[in-house]
């Protein structure tokens, strides 16, 4: 089953900088390389820092666009991984390797199972999956 690992980190306003950034990137590269080698990596991307974020809400048909992430939190979404794992314990073992430390503070990884198993989300496949959720 696929799991998404959401990487939460504390970060400065302009994201990572300097030697710290280098250390983190190397850590991620190691995980991606090992996961690819083992055939479990489906995807992984860093996100540009929260200073580049834009939030969109719709109220009464009107688009409300604001600067910044949807909520002011100490830890922000810094990136994600998607991995194919047998079970939660395997996903946890990978999550433990993913670096979150940023400018001396710790972050965390949120693991979410991904419900729709088909890699191509066709209408019939989605309907079938939704139906099985209600079953």
């Amino acid at each position: 089953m696929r799991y998404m690992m959401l990487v939460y980190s504390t970060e400065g306003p302009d994201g990572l900088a300097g030697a710290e950034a280098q250390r983190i990137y190397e850590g991620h590269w190691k995980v991606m390389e090992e996961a690819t080698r083992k055939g479990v990596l489906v995807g992984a991307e860093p996100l540009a820092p929260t200073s580049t974020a834009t939030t969109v809400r719709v109220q009464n048909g009107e688009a409300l666009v604001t600067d910044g992430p949807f909520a002011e939190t100490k830890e922000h979404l810094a990136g994600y991984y998607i991995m194919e794992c047998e079970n939660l314990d395997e996903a946890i073992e990978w999550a433990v390797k993913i670096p979150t430390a940023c400018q001396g503070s710790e972050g965390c990884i949120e693991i979410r199972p991904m419900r729709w198993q088909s890699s191509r989300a066709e209408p019939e496949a989605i309907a079938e999956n939704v139906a099985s959720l209600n079953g």
Partner: protein
Amino acid sequence: MADIRSAAESVFREESGRIIAGLIRICGSFDRPEEAMQESFAAALASWPIKGIPANPAGWIMTAAHRKLIDAARRERTRLEKQDSLKYETQIAGSASYAQTEEAFMDFPDDRLRLIFTCCHPALNVEAQVALTLRTLGGLSTPEIAKSFLLPEPTLAQRLVRAKRKIQEARIPYEVPPQDRLPERLASVQAVIYLIFNEGYAASSGTELVRNELCAEAIRLGRVLCELLPREAENTGLLALMLLQHSRRDARVLNGELVTLEEQDRSLWDRGAISEGLMLVEKALSLGPAGPYQLQAAVAALHAETANSDDTDWPQIAALYEKLLEMNPSPVIALNHAVAVAMNGRLEAGLNRIEALGRSRQLDRYYLFHAARADLLRRLNQNSDAAAAYQKAAALATNRVEVDFLNRRLRQLKRD
């Protein structure tokens, strides 16, 4: 027929953990085995009064539950995900006879281990861990668990449903954790068992102080853990701790009123539990370096061995709490250490430590902190400060029996 019912209940309690563990291994889910067990229980209640209690009750239950599983699989065949029903059909097809059931269900000791570790998986919240452990390993019914924790039945039922759904959706595996993960996972299991014990020992709410059935259940689970992982010293330490604390149950409440350890009639302590507890403390210490449960058990052992509270070995108890503090510098342990120091003839020193803890504000909402402080102030004849502290403690305590005790102390102070 109450006899048959209670016989059936006690068999189910004893055996259901083992049986459910095997059923889960075979069909790969929590829901269906549980339903199957509930249905076999109903079937037992219908059949045993007429046909008598079977010679091999566990075998009877296994066969019945197995049959229910097969029936359920057939009914659900069209609705199950393809994966599940395939696994199901290949393993269960045609094996409805008793002999084949026996083989399929051979008691793999690993089964119950898998069950315990899965129920206590850290990805489940603690309330869910407790409920699931009591339901599957403990064989307690949902109403029984709800009653033990003074929760409405639907709340408990929901908790179980959500826990099982999380296990399924997040794919929490039905496995014993690998060696390198075992320490932290085992700590989860021990914490759940001790939580259950504590809920029975010092009930957090309600009108009864002690709920012996919960304590007994926790002890039983502790024994199972020791049986399954005998070389883990802390398992033995935990069991010893629970037995020694449980040994005092008949002396703790007199005429509905709480009696402190100091004032308890020690002739009412359970000697059998004490001797087993003492033996286990020694055994645990021989198995490896002392962990927190073993240290706490050693403290309990010191109380248990002393016929007269005046002869309590407070210096040794204080030393044990110091060791505990090194492992786990928690404010509650610091509180216990302070009390031991005070009781060791150094009331002022103990009080000073408690005041220092008070300044950290961490124990502000903890009624036992205020109760301990009140008690020391009382012994030092600082009555008005003691009274204020008893009032704070009584306001924070949630169990009726403890509140009454604190108010009684308050009234005694006002009389002096």
